[in-house]
Each structure stands twice: as structure tokens, then as C-alpha cells.
């Protein structure tokens, strides 16, 4: 039940996207997202959709898995579509009592939904093809210029790494404690909200206890290995920019330029 949750949905592989430097990937993702918001025309979206499809194809992640990332937000997408469909004034396409569907609404709703889906798919492409460790490394690297203004970049990245590292452990632990208490007769699935909340106590107490114990042990183990924060710390797998990254950056900038020209011509 709980084990079905996947966080840090990394899908191991060795595709072009997997090999791209994570810092480059994050920056290009931001660029693409900006493009999605700035160039709000059907032609521009045609290009962006084509690019997204191409990226999905060369990511090595099965289409089914990729599309599954849309599922948690499916309701929001549908709701957005309906709101735009019904709430946009214009030429009537279909009338049913008080419900008035307009052509403008149809087009606007489709557009906004496409935008949402593109944003979700592109960011999941990043998380599917980048391991959480690389992701936090990249975040640290990208945030480190802001250290000058007092931003604890290394500490933030370390916290994220540790959190990500412990999410599966905690899920596993919750699953185990739930099963243990279930075999002692707790029922989480029936009863009023209040009884169900009360049924959570036997899970939360042991869970917190073990989480604190784990945190304590980890801190001790880190200190025993002389962890002193980020200053002067090197990495075993340093991030390196390769020719592939230059090519990707070049192509993406070319595309951005092309889209700008297109928008200017309009």
C-alpha cells in the first residue's frame, strides 16, 4: 500500500538526457518554462510540443511511466479546462440550458491545459533522468553564487540529500509499524475521522521515536567522520560539462532565438 509511493522518481538509464550535466538540465528547463510562458502562441507551442515529444522519446523512460506523472494533477488539469471552457465569453459553440460553451473557451481551455501538461512533463523529465544526488549537487552548484549574500547553499543541499535519502527508509518503517499494529488489531480503514486519527497514534509514536534515533545516530556518524560543513569539501563524482552539454545549450538557445523572431514577426 504505502510502498507504491515513489518520491525522487529517478528512472535509471543511460540516455542522452541521463548523460546531460544536471546543472545544464536545470537551467535549460528554466529556459523552456520561461518560453512556455512568454511565447503563448499556437505556432510556438507546436515547436515546444514537438521538442517535448522528442525529449520524451530519447529519455529512455517508458511512455507509460512518463504519463503517470500527470496523474496526481489530472484533476487540476480537468478543472482548469472546465473553468476556462465555461468562463470565457465569445461565440457560442454549444448551448445547454445555462451552460454556454464558446469557441474561445474551448481554445483557451485546451491551451492552458497544454501549458500545464508541458510544464509537468518537462519537469518530470528532469527528475526521471537525474538521480536525486546529482540533482542536489546541481542545486548546490547553482545556488553557491548566492552564498555571498548569506545563503547556506551547501547546508541546504545536504539537508535535501539527507531528506531524500531517508524518505524510502521512513516509508518502509511506516509500512512495517502499520503492519505490526494491524496485526495487533488496529483498523485504519473504517470508522469516523476521529477514530481514524486516534488509530494513527500507535504508528506516529514509534515512527517519531525511530526517526529521532536515526537522526541522532546519523549526526554522530557524520561527526565521527569529521564532517565540518561545506568549506573546502570536494566531491567524489564532480560534475563536468561535456560537448553534449554545449550542443544542447546551443540548440536550445537557437530555438529560443527562433521563437523570439517568430513572435516579433507576428
Amino acid at each position, binding site marked *: 500500500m504505502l*510502498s507504491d509511493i515513489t518520491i525522487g522518481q529517478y528512472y535509471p538509464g543511460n540516455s542522452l538526457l541521463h548523460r546531460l550535466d544536471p546543472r545544464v538540465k536545470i537551467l535549460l528547463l528554466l529556459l523552456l518554462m520561461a518560453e512556455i510562458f512568454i511565447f503563448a502562441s499556437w505556432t510556438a507551442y507546436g515547436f515546444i510540443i514537438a521538442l517535448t515529444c522528442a525529449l520524451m522519446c530519447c529519455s529512455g523512460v517508458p511512455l507509460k511511466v512518463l504519463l503517470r506523472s500527470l496523474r496526481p494533477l489530472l484533476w487540476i488539469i480537468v478543472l482548469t479546462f472546465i473553468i476556462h471552457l465555461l468562463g470565457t465569453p465569445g461565440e457560442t459553440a454549444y448551448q445547454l440550458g445555462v451552460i454556454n460553451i464558446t469557441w474561445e473557451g474551448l481554445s483557451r481551455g485546451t491551451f492552458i491545459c497544454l501549458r500545464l501538461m508541458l510544464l509537468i512533463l518537462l519537469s518530470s523529465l528532469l527528475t526521471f533522468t537525474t538521480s536525486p544526488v546529482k540533482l542536489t549537487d546541481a542545486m548546490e552548484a547553482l545556488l553557491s553564487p548566492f552564498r555571498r549574500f548569506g545563503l547556506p547553499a551547501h547546508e541546504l543541499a545536504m539537508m535535501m540529500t539527507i531528506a531524500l535519502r531517508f524518505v524510502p527508509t521512513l516509508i518502509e518503517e511506516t509500512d512495517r509499524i502499520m*503492519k*505490526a499494529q494491524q*496485526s*495487533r488489531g*488496529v*483498523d485504519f480503514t473504517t470508522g469516523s475521522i476521529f477514530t481514524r486519527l486516534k488509530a494513527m497514534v500507535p504508528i506516529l509514536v514509534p515512527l517519531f*521515536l525511530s526517526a529521532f534515533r536515526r537522526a541522532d545516530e546519523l549526526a554522530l556518524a557524520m561527526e565521527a567522520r569529521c564532517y565540518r560543513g561545506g568549506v573546502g569539501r570536494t566531491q567524489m563524482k564532480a560534475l563536468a560539462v561535456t560537448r553534449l552539454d554545449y550542443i544542447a545549450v546551443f540548440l536550445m538557445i537557437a530555438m529560443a532565438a527562433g521563437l523570439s523572431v517568430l513572435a516579433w514577426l507576428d
Partner: protein
Amino acid sequence: MSIELKNVSYTYMPDTPMERQALMGVTMTLERGRFYAIAGHTGSGKSTLIQQICGLLTPTSGEVVVEGVPLKAKSKEGKKQAALAKRKIGLVFQYPEQQLFEETVAADVAFGPRNQGLTEEEIARRVQKALALVDLDYEAYGGKSPFQLSGGQKRRAAIAGVLAMEPEYLILDEPTAGLDPKGREAILELINTLQKGGKGKEPMTIIMVSHAMDDILRLADEMFVMQEGRLTASGAPAEVFERWDVLSEAGLEPPKLLLLMERLREAGLAERGPVRNLKEAVQAVKRGLGKC
């Protein structure tokens, strides 16, 4: 009266990249009143198997039948029957002390019976009985916080929490893991007494997962060897431990005691014949020496 597993298979996280088949076509029968042991290398599916037996996991294919009641039921009546059947099975997880949560030991032991909806007097009676069984003094420990106890005491309090539900089948997942020799011995002794019954008590069926082959040889009536989700051997421990090929295939070693006896016999210092514990070994050596 028995628990039957019929061709049980189980897959964790199906249809994901982490998909993993943990059990493959396991068939076994667990008769009432006997002592069963499950052995196997780490990751061979022992914990998954026992969770099938007590209905915490539902088989992907195959079925589990507890005393004639199938656990996988569709109808409302069937589900009710299954829930009642599950009550007959008590499960002690690996490191059970991690599931303690109440303010006092007595309250924690009472947790299971209370969920069963028993009366207060009955709960109190069961708590006292369960604590006495695991050899924790009610007066001294009942009112203490579980977190003030030592590791071994915590483990015993947790086992009492399961015993207080008065199961007919008791499943234990590595009950001696992480205890000192004295604590291990105490727990094994407790399990053995429960299984033997006597003093007006019915013998309890024990199903114990263990990595300690010597304990299995000494205590179990029957053992199962798991290897990569499959059941590769079953039978009386003395017989299973004869089959060294199956054991090494499953990543297990024969009990130290049997290895020692083998060496002694080769040197002509001990008599042939089955040996299950130290006492019998001593006798075999005495008889072997007597012949010289």
C-alpha cells in the same frame, strides 16, 4: 486443523521499475501444535512468506487457507470469517520492541486485547497472564514506561503484547536478533514452553524465522528452507541438515553441532545416529568412547 498455503506467489510493486517477485509458488501445510522453523539467506522471502500466512499481504496468485477459511474472500460473510481466522494468528515482527508506544508496559500489552473489544476484567487478566508468561513482573514493570526497559525486556514486553491476544498460531520473525546470549536463551526457552503447552494450556503452534541453525536443530519439529522466493526443502531438521547440497545452494551452513559431530565420527570418537542438542551429543560421544 491447519494453515495451508497453496501455490502462493507474491510480487512487490508490480508494474514499476522496482518490481520484484519475492515468492514463487510456495506450497506448505502448518499443522496445529507443532514447531516450525523457516531458514533462508537474507532476501530469500522469509518475512514476505510469514506476512502471507497471517494475511497482512494478499498473494498475487495462489491462496492461504486458515483452518478451512480462505483469507482472500470477496463476500461480506467471507470477509468476516477471514477476519476471525486471522485473529487466531499472532505475529511478532523482527525487532518488535520498535512498535511499543504506550505510556506504560501494561497499557501497551493491553492494546491488542482492547482492539479485540474484550471487557476490562478480561483485558486485565490477559495482561497479567501475558506478562507472567514472558517473565516480567507485573508489579515491578507493569507501571513503567516501555522505554525505561532494557533491550531484552522491551522485546519480552512486545511479545507479551502479542501473547495477550491469545493466538493459536504464533509467528516470530527472528525473535532473538540483536540479543545477548542470555536474552536469546530466555526467549527461546519461552517459545519452547509455549509450544509444549501443559499445565492446562493447549500447545501453541510456533512458526519461527531464524538464522541460527543450531536453534532450529534443537527446537523445531519441521523446517522449511527458502531460496530466492522458492521453497527448496522441507522436513525434519535432522534430515534437512543432511542435505548439504541444498543447504549450500540456499546459502546456509549446517549447525555447528552437526559439523563437530561429523569430525568426531570421522575420528571414531562418537557413535552414528541422530543428534539434536548438546545432551544427545554428549551421550553419542560417551557411547562412541565406550566402544573403544
